């Protein structure tokens, strides 16, 4: 009953005229961004963070969440119609979605993707609501050692699942931790790596860094490159799938919901792995695996459901444990910090309007997406004609104005531009900035909780194994590390890493990737190292 009344309160927050408009703006903006080449949800959320500063906390997260799941839908449209995935999680949809479009079935492909995403999103929201309170009240028992270990497990899982080699991901995490340690020491207050600068004493602004690493570096990577010709979009006639389509899709949608929800919970999982896993599962259990890659509707329904369920579920660790499980969640963590709210076990009880408001807005947003998505398909396809140069000019101006407005500080602008240049070189050398931002966000939590833990135990590390919950966490951590070491040793991790690598490349460079590239498990089948 409590949950129902809390949810009702959430609707009261989400259904105010301002928040309804923000959900609508968020999902529309998200869909546009999902469609536009070169702009993903991460970049957009990064450059729009300062705009949310002027909003109250629930409204800010409602807007950003809308952008996030709106982009998941938007990416599907171009994957199906023109075989250009707008964001990475939609690459899998090109395999069968575009084949369906070529067979004159673009409408049912988009229809089943929208219905699957809707079901996945709604089911995951309800699961999230049911799990949130028990998880948050359990997590309220966490002390400093447990909070430290949760963050360590989060970082190790991101290392385990990242789309780059272990040393590269490790280096990015280390740089993020070092960036987080710049400024005042949290215990003694003395300056660290400030080089005598007063501005540095306040620390490097994480939002400015994220805006540079994602927004400006993306622009620098594309500047001077000619725009690709707009591919010819497939025609969309009827959008409703037929009876047989629904029959074929029911299983994949159900499995996609469960799989996506589970993977979304795991740090480093998120929508990309969810859609990959769903596609692999559907192909494996299908009576006609040969149909996959040639227009099987199951290959659209499953992954699309899973990626929306995964992206929805990834809010749970953020809002109940204060643990961002991926880059977008790390940026939302930053958005909450901008609002003066620290995500953690007490968020649900201390700021119920944020948690329940965002949950209710997700339901409203998913309905809006289902209603708006299909009628606007024609308009979205036209957006593919917008040239990269114009997108870049708008991105740069919005980013730099936004970063200045954070603290009215030119120091933040300089930090952002330097981060942009660093991010540009990181991309050129095949480093992904996600783990860096995640570690920069978690860095201060890790340090303060480690120091508090050791202060409680008079400097003895035994505190991590003498408390029940933390002992279990240490065991989980050991298992994860053993799993990571063993998969690295057997070369399995390399295969997964390269599959994700290929997906990233396919999304960024519009290269052809086939269903076989993703699902073949033979050693060496994906043994190529690529530069992203």
């Amino acid at each position, binding site marked *: 009953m409590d949950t129902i009344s809390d949810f009702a309160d959430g609707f009261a927050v989400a259904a105010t005229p301002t928040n309804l408009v923000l959900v609508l703006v968020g999902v529309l903006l998200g869909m546009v961004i999902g469609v536009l080449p070169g702009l993903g949800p991460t970049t957009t959320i990064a450059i729009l963070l300062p705009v949310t500063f002027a909003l109250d906390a629930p409204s800010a997260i409602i807007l950003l969440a809308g952008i996030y799941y709106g982009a998941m839908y938007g990416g599907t449209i171009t994957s199906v119609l023109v075989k250009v995935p707008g964001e990475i999680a939609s690459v899998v949809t090109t395999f069968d979605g575009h084949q369906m479009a070529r067979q004159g079935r673009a409408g049912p492909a988009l229809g089943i993707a929208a219905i699957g995403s809707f079901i996945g999103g709604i089911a995951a929201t309800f699961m999230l609501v049911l799990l949130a309170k028990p998880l948050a009240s359990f997590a309220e028992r966490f002390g400093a050692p447990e909070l430290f270990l949760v963050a360590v497990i989060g970082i190790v899982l991101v290392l385990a699942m990242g789309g780059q080699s272990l040393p590269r991901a490790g280096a990015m995490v280390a740089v993020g931790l070092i960036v987080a340690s710049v400024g005042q020491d949290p215990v003694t207050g003395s300056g660290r790596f400030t080089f005598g600068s007063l501005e540095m004493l306040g620390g490097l602004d994480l939002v400015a860094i994220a805006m540079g690493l994602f927004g400006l570096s993306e622009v*620098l990577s594309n*500047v001077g490159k000619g725009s690709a010709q707009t591919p010819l979009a497939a025609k969309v006639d009827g959008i409703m799938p037929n009876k047989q389509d629904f029959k074929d899709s029911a299983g994949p949608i159900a499995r996609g919901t469960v799989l996506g929800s589970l993977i979304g919970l795991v740090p480093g999982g998120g929508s990309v792995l969810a859609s990959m896993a769903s596609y692999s599962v559907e192909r494996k259990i299908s009576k006609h695996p040969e149909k996959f890659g040639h227009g099987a509707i199951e290959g659209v329904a499953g992954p699309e459901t899973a990626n929306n369920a995964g992206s929805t579920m990834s809010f749970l660790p953020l809002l109940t444990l204060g643990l961002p499980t991926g880059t977008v969640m790390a940026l939302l963590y930053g958005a909450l910090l901008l609002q003066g709210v620290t995500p953690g076990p007490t968020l649900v009880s201390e700021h119920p309007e944020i948690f329940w408001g965002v949950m209710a807005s997700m339901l409203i947003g998913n309905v809006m997406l289902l209603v708006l998505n299909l009628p606007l398909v024609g308009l979205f396809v036209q957006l593919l004609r917008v040239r990269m140069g114009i997108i*870049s000019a708008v991105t740069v101006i919005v980013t730099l104005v936004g970063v200045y407005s954070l603290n009215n500080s030119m120091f933040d602008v300089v930090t952002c531009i330097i981060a942009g240049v660093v991010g540009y070189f990181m991309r050129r050398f095949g480093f992904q900035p996600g783990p860096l931002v995640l570690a920069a966000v978690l860095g201060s939590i890790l340090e303060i909780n480690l120091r508090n833990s050791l202060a409680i135990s008079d400097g003895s590390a035994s505190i991590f194994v003498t408390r029940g919950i933390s002992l279990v966490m240490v065991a989980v951590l050991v298992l994860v590390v053993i799993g990571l070491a063993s998969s690295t040793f057997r070369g399995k991790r390399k295969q997964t890493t390269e599959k994700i690598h290929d997906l990233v490349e396919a999304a960024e460079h519009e290269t052809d990737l086939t269903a076989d590239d993703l699902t073949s498990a033979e050693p060496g089948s994906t043994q190529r190292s690529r530069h992203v």
Partner: protein
Amino acid sequence: MSVKEAVVNVVKPERASALEPLLRRAPGVVLGLAGLAVMGGSWRLGLTQDGSMGPGLWPFMAAVLLVVSSVGIVLGPVEERDAEDDATFFPPAAIAAIVAMAAFAALLTTIGITTSIALVSLFWLKVLAGEKWLLSVVMSLVLAIVIYFLFIQVLDIPLPVDAFLPR
């Protein structure tokens, strides 16, 4: 073939093959050196203080991770890079883009937000993106006006406003 072309033809492949492995290992080496520098800085901050963790211990641990990872990067397989990537590794357009960003930062606090947006976006659209004059002028004016109204009038963010415009 001129002497210069002949020299370039002979020297270029050798130079490329000699520099290529170095360039590919460079990120690992740079990160490793940065890690060592941070270790040194952390050491000076103090690893312990009154028997507990000092201000330098946490960054020192992160720097150790950086150094270990950089060794893995240097000794690990190198990333294959396309010839096209090499040719455009740091193109003049990217340098011009960085200069434009820095110019925007400088102009923002001196002449105000609207004029600086109009000027820098005009440069970006015309010179960097190669758009036509009409589209560049219209787009840059629209962008300046939209941002002025959104950030200053609607969101009321205290940005430096041009002298000729109301706050």
